């Protein structure tokens, strides 16, 4: 069982190198991004999420829509536990997996095999778990003997294939994604697509930030439209997409 419940959550980023005085004069909503403001000590802050209340349950496939800087990534990071809310409560039951930056932690000087262990370890897998899956990962990535070569000898496609193969091994109860992952050439893309769909199906809750209308309509059963860190609309994909893309 997985459950996400957040209540009255605000996320404020303190900006330490901005000139507080000059910025304080313009406490208005900017066209893009969160809201600029100042906290009680006069420091400049960017309010990325404001008074968000949200409950997600088993079976929810949520598409996050919104312009750049609307707070989509911040919300994903809040849910993954990277950011603690500045105020409000976040209550999450279930194991969380994130497919946000699948190349994170990859070392170009290390071999493909070493990178599988590094990347797997960062995703929370233990060494025996990785050892158990390593043949499957190598086979899926179709790298063959290149797996024992340093990563800098890989093409960017091979690089992504490896990152994809490792990152999609985990089966979390809550899956966070920033756009749909699409890697490789035609043949590989087909395989990757099948794997992604399988991963999405086996997860209890999916939250995906996207700009794609089709993705929301095809994959999601709920859509949330964020703007300036606030929820503008939270309903079925059809109606949200229609208002958002008018």
């Amino acid at each position, binding site marked *: 069982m997985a459950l996400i419940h957040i209540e009255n959550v605000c996320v404020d*980023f*303190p900006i*330490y190198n901005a000139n507080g005085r000059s910025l304080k004069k313009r406490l208005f909503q900017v066209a893009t991004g969160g809201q600029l403001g100042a906290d009680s000590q006069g420091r400049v802050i960017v309010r990325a999420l404001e008074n968000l209340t949200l409950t997600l349950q088993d079976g929810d496939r949520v598409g996050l829509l919104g312009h750049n800087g609307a707070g989509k990534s911040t919300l994903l*990071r809040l849910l*993954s*536990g*990277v*950011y*603690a809310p500045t105020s409000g409560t976040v209550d999450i039951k279930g194991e*969380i997996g*994130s497919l*946000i*930056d699948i190349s*994170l*932690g990859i*070392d170009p*000087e*290390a071999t493909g095999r*070493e990178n599988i*262990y*590094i990347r797997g*370890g*960062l*995703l*929370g897998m*233990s*060494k025996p778990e990785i050892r158990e899956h390593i043949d499957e990962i190598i086979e899926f990535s179709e790298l063959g003997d290149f797996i024992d070569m340093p990563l800098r000898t890989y093409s960017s496609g091979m690089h992504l294939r490896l990152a994809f193969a490792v990152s999609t091994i985990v089966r979390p109860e809550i899956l966070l994604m920033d756009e749909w992952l699409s890697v490789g050439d035609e043949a590989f893309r087909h395989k990757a697509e099948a794997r992604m769909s399988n991963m999405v199906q086996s997860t209890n809750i999916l939250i995906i930030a996207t700009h794609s209308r089709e993705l929301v309509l095809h994959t999601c059963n709920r859509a949330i439209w964020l703007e300036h860190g606030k929820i503008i609309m939270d309903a079925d994909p059809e109606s949200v997409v229609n208002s958002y893309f008018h």
Partner: protein
Amino acid sequence: MKNIALDDIANALERSSLAGMLGWQDVRQRYRRSALGPFWLTISMGVMIGTIGIVFGQIFKSPMTEFLPFLSAGMILWGLISSVVTEGCVGFIGAENIIKQLPIPLFVHIMRLMWRNLIIFAHNLAILPIVFLAVGKPLEVTALLSIPGFILVVLNLAWVALILGIICARYRDLPQIVSNFLQVLFYLTPIMWMPTLLPQRAGIYLLSLNPLYHLLEIVRAPLLGHLPSAQSWLVASGLALIGWGMTVAIYTSYKRRIAYWL
């Protein structure tokens, strides 16, 4: 009642294999494709000890059998201490990418840098037997006492690295101040000069009141065949207790802010 800081540290310890792997990776990355690898550090440390040993041994008119083992043990330990402190300052800043993407216990990043420096320290340790052989000084049974001493030093370094990592993430001027301070500390502490050379008065200030001296003593003295004073043990243990207490308190209040500061 769960404590955020202790929780994080416990979770990090559970994932020590990750910290170990990343630490190894750092060392390997630095020396990949070089034939001698991390032994280059050992060589440069060895050359430095040799040079300082010859020059200052002459200036201080210290017998080489005494001075060289003293200097090598001190320099190798100082190498570990100073690099953990310097790298502790960027312990969280340097891990920004990971911290902002993956919810890994933050103390893992501190353990990673501790482990990386312990590996390098182990390489430098190869110098000691060579020096002892070269000057013909035997290693006595008391040397075993340096092991608990070393553990205490590592415990102390861990809290120093953690607290510096936290404060430096917020105040970016601090790493510069710390590196200045370390240089001063290097000269104030008997590493290059032997404490016996000091006049009585100065000794009280530079030795008794210098916690770094006590930390060095509990490892170095047994290696050289003396017993460290009870005072040194007391100071080192007290420092670990008070330091960890203070660090846990600060970590509890600010752990959740660290990601925001990066």
